[in-house]
């Protein structure tokens, strides 16, 4: 009987699967085409740019040459790399250390810290922008890298991520370390961190992407164009060189390339970290 039903439904099932494949392939094409177009635009000279929708028969370095001569692109790239990696390292250290304490110790004030962190997560970041700017202004850190790095060092998201993953480290492992005479800091460095390596990878990637693309706060803090990060510099190019689309696309392409490469290397960790909070919590 089961087989009979299957036989009847067979053509329907095949048609359904066919439609599903068409939908998925068209969808994937829509997702990928703008990126392909971006790549193609970077390889065309000014005359070919709009003449050919995608790749032109002639390859041209014009856009990249123009990019490096019209703006200090490398400088912006270095600014972005420096700021994003510094913030990631600082966040990683502080978040994992505090996450360890919140996961594996009982101490006074722990509840207060947890509740405060949850409460601030509810409040959109933009609420504190005005007073934070005032504070940074008073500290004399406007238009400095420190003005980006110091407020960026706090990552409540990171603490929850690390607390969650460190909760799963067995207590016996820590006690064994203590019996061997490990100090608590040694436990953190020699046991907790190595065990949480997948989470470290996920956190670094998510945090790096967030900082790499960060726009509003750097836009507020940085004034001098030498200090601009890539998003600020690129956004300004839209206004200043609005007709040089090829150059703009070359800048966009080089700006997104590091993140794309990093993602392809760390893909598995990224998805695990992204969904850890949602699925388990």
């Amino acid at each position, binding site marked *: 009987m089961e087989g009979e039903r299957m036989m009847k439904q067979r053509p329907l099932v095949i048609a359904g699967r066919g439609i599903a494949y068409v939908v998925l392939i068209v969808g994937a094409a829509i997702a990928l085409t703008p990126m392909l177009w971006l790549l193609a635009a970077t390889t065309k000279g000014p005359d070919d740019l709009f003449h050919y929708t995608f790749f032109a028969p002639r390859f041209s370095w014009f856009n990249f040459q123009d990019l490096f001569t019209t703006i200090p692109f490398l400088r912006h790239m270095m600014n972005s790399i420096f700021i994003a990696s510094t913030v990631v390292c600082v966040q990683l250290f502080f978040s994992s250390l505090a996450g360890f304490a919140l996961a594996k*110790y009982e*101490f006074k004030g722990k509840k207060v*810290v947890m509740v405060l962190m949850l409460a601030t997560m509810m409040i959109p970041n933009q609420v504190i922008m005005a007073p934070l700017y*005032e504070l940074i202004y008073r500290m004399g850190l406007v238009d400095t890298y420190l003005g980006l790095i110091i407020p960026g060092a706090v990552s409540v998201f990171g603490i929850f991520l690390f607390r969650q993953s460190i909760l799963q480290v067995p207590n016996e492992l820590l006690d064994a370390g203590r019996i061997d005479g490990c100090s608590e800091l040694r436990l953190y460095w020699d046991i907790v961190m190595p065990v949480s390596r997948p989470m470290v990878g996920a956190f670094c990637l998510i945090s790096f992407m967030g900082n790499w*693309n960060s726009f509003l706060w750097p836009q507020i803090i940085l004034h001098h164009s030498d200090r601009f990060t890539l998003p600020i510099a690129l*956004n300004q190019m839209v206004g200043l060189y609005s007709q040089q689309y090829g150059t703009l696309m070359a800048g966009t392409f080089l700006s997104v390339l590091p993140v794309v490469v990093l993602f392809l290397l760390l893909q598995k960790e990224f998805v695990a970290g992204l969904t850890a909070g949602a*699925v388990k919590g």
Partner: protein
Amino acid sequence: MGEPKHKRHTDTSKWFALQYRYAPYLFVAPFVILFAAFGCWPIIKSLILSLHTTNGPKDVVFSGLSNFRFLLADPDFHKAVGNTAEYAFWSVFLQLPLSLGLAILLSQKWLRGREFLRLAFFSPHLLGTVFVGVLFSVIFIPQYGLLNKVLHAVAGVPLDTKWLANPSLVMPALVLTALWMYVGFNMIYFLAALQAVDRELYDAAQVDGANGWQTFLAVTMPGIKPVAIFVLVMSTIGSFQLFELPYTMLGNGPGPDKAGLTVVMYLYQSGFVTGDLGYASAIGWTLALGVLVISLIQMKLTGAWKGSA
């Protein structure tokens, strides 16, 4: 976690007990100090600032609730709220169903090339909002832009359609861009949730003779409910913080007829272009309150507080 049993030497054991006791305080201290200074204090300060009229960070005058009174009557703020709400509406009712649909298709057992398709759908998110904004500001240009070329070839849409210069097309352009960027991102959450649904429930539904739609309502939806609520709430909160996409796509401004003015853009302009940090704080708190109320309503309506969720 007992006291450490290591007692080779009284001095070392004393030191050992001491560092054990104070270690957690030491570990949270750097974070707590930074968090207090750059997280908690600005929140309190922004409440205070919202009661002041300011001209830059130095010139601050107390003005009571006048910021909020002014805000409620401010036509630009109304425009910003309207635009942002419209964008959020499409994010929830267009983007999320599409994400879920794609996730369901991608989680079918018979599907080939799943890894590639998942990566393809997710990849737009890797570009980041500002770079997507820059890229699409070119894709949307009339005559030569990719979108008009494609739409012209497929549906005969005029080549000189000015997506970013025509007030009534700005919002569709923003929604389309966001759709391209976020559908695959939210899909990842739904995929993870679908993989966690018990396979046996599907087999049981099949034995009971349930059709696809019945199975979806009775097995899939309850199974992914906690994640679906999470994605719904996060996506709404994110939509209400819309800023970078319109700001970059519309040439660092609200666009024609302020059709792309959003709440956060208005906050930025009031606080950091006009220089009224007090008014910006009032906008910020109004936004926070609005987002909180909407999230609570969403959680109430979806039953987030009942049952397994």
